[in-house]
């Protein structure tokens, strides 16, 4: 920590380690203590990890504390017992240094160690460079140019950071902190150090070798969402044959013209009309939609949205809302969420966004078919489904959605309409509920969990369509079993 004695004022203000009450604490905040009296060693480092009230009382009575206000060591005031942390060590307080003192601004003097000519000059007259000539001109020119703002500001911020948050033991124990010995138990413990960029000139990395368990970084749950699967469905229209069973064909003329073709010596006539078959007798016609699967279009491949690419995110978002065009964007949202503490599988169906109004039906044609326990399907909502979703998980999920600018997935659902209406409008249907997908969990080659919840599509892998049509052979070896497809 660079430190200049000449520029530092000789008095410190400190946060009192002990005080009778709040009033005295405030008084002591204002009371300057001389440089010599500044408390150096805080007794928290020697505190036991856990101690009873009696043990703590005994320790406090048999130990001295430095009182910087009185400049003596003295027994701890029993009144301060109750304010001491019960558990020290790992959970001890760790404040960071604030490195300015308003009180010292008035008596600044120029830094002058070894430079007598500047010793008594006021700070405002201190020089920052000497005999640098063109270097200074270049530095000034750098600052004159507004296009250098980003580079300029980053340098300024880093220097300011070093002013306000000091670090000194950054290189100890591979940047983990400083080692200290407990007075009571002779136990070596590590204490965290100050605020600084721990990684130095290198960026952080998840771990050195992902294949080693001990090198693994913070565990996380990987969630893969596949909200947009587009496929063709067949519909059937049947009508009763006969005279006027379905009603009539309307027609009407629009143009009738007669002409004389003198070249060929004939007369001719042109007749134009419009016609449309209109069904007015609906009881003799049956329209059925979604009667059979007619092939996959898109949305179920292995491509993922690149969360760090705004183009990828934007195209995904736009395509999700665009129902009148074929979907042609990355299929999966892959997210790393905090590890869930629940040791159970998700429900099936799931609501794949954080919230949804109650009373929603997964089938838009069933107005009375709302799920009565909708909240138990909201796997990213910690309030409505606390059994599985932790607040941290919901926060993290929300961050992803904010990044995607799709926090209101329910808007997509507002466009939801029955298949027939969508068919007439030449649009797609969508629902913000999803089947859980298939997942097989193996541990050391042993199957410990097998979830088959793919909904109406059944299992999904290359060649499964022919199986569904009764022409293929179910080949287990061909399944993509290690993924969760939603």
């Amino acid at each position, binding site marked *: 920590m*660079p430190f200049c004695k000449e520029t*530092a004022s000789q008095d*410190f*203000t400190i*946060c*009192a*380690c002990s005080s009778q009450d709040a009033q005295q*604490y*405030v008084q002591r905040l*204002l009371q300057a203590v001389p440089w*010599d009296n*500044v*408390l*150096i060693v*805080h007794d928290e*480092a020697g505190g036991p990890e856990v101690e009873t009230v009696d043990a703590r009382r005994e320790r406090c009575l048999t130990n*001295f504390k*430095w009182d910087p206000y009185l400049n003596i060591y003295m027994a701890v005031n029993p009144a301060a017992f109750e*304010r001491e*942390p019960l558990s020290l060590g790992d959970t001890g*307080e*760790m*404040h*960071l240094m604030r490195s*300015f003192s*308003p*009180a010292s601004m008035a008596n600044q003097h120029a*830094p002058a*160690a070894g*430079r007598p000519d500047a010793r008594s000059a006021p700070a*405002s*007259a201190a020089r*920052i*460079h*000497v*005999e640098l000539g063109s*270097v*200074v001109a270049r*530095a000034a020119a750098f600052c004159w*140019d*507004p296009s250098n703002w980003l580079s*300029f*500001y980053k*340098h*300024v911020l*880093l*220097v*300011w*950071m070093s*002013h*306000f*948050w*000091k670090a000194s033991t950054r290189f100890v124990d591979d940047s983990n902190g400083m080692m200290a010995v407990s007075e009571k138990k002779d136990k070596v413990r590590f*204490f965290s150090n*100050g605020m600084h*960029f*721990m990684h130095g000139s290198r960026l*952080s990395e998840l771990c050195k070798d992902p294949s080693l368990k001990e090198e693994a970084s913070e565990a996380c749950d990987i969630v893969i969402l596949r909200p947009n699967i587009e496929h063709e469905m067949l519909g059937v229209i049947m009508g009763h044959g006969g005279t006027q069973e379905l009603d009539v064909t309307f027609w009407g003329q629009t143009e009738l013209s007669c002409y004389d073709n003198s070249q060929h010596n004939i007369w001719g006539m042109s007749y134009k009309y419009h016609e449309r078959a209109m069904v007015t007798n609906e009881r003799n016609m049956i329209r059925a939609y979604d009667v059979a699967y007619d092939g996959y279009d898109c949305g179920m491949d292995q491509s993922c949205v690149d969360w760090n690419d705004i183009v990828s995110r934007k195209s995904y978002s736009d395509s999700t809302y665009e129902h009148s065009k074929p979907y042609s964007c990355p299929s999966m949202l892959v997210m790393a969420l905090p590890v869930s503490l629940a040791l159970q599988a998700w429900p099936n169906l799931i609501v794949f966004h954080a919230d949804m109004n109650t009373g929603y039906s997964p089938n838009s044609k069933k107005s009375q078919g709302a799920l009565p326990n909708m909240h138990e399907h909201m796997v990213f909502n910690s309030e409505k489904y606390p059994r599985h979703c932790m607040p941290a998980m919901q*926060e993290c999920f929300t961050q992803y959605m904010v*990044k995607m600018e799709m926090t209101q997935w329910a808007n997509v659902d507002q466009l939801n309409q029955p298949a027939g209406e969508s068919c007439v409008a030449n649009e797609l249907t969508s629902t913000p509920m999803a089947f859980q997908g298939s997942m097989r969990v193996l541990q050391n080659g042993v199957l410990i969990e097998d979830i088959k919840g793919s909904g109406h599509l059944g299992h999904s892998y290359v060649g499964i369509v022919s199986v569904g049509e009764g022409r293929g052979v179910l080949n287990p070896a061909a399944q993509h079993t290690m993924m969760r497809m939603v």
Partner: protein
Amino acid sequence: MNTHAGKPGKLYTSDWHTTFTEQMKGQHASVKRTHNVVVQSSGTAGANISHFPNYHISHCHELCDADRSRSASSKDDSTWVLQQLMGMTPLSTKVCPRMMGLQELSSTLVSQCAKLLKTDNRPVHKPTVLCPVVRRVNTTNNSHLNNYDGHSDLKEGQMQPWVADQFKTNLMLSIMAHFHLSSYVREESASYAFVPEHVQTMVMLAFADVIEKNVTQSEMLEQALG
């Protein structure tokens, strides 16, 4: 016969303290280094010392050409001088509280900010949970304390090791907006740390001015930073 019976015990830690502070005043390099280590390793990181008077002055001498070989930042002349200026410029009572002003942030964002500055993932080092029983020192009714914003609160219970408030300061948010690895954190922080273009120009011109005038502070710079 016990010759030590009437001899009072000597509090040897007092000698440590005296010796240390005397040598500290002597500006001995190794003592200063020790001071840093002791403060840090005491588990408090200087918790008891709320304000280090002018510790932000990190450069004590004028920059001269001979310093070039001792400074890695001299590779670029422009930023070399700029860093020197920043190291010597005193920060006023108007500027500092503004830098240390607090914003309301979500605990998740604070936690992610902390990841930049801490490599281990121990739960106790995450500032996500704050001490539930802390009585704040009422500075609003004590106008004379306003210049002392930044003091710790009066402790009434167990504290968490990382103080989330540090990550909620305007200065830290500016740092996160520019240096954090997560684009999410950068974007979220940037909304709090936005610097309008006219302010950018004003600050840069003020720095150019003091570099040309060869002084560590000026009214123009104070106005730009304030």
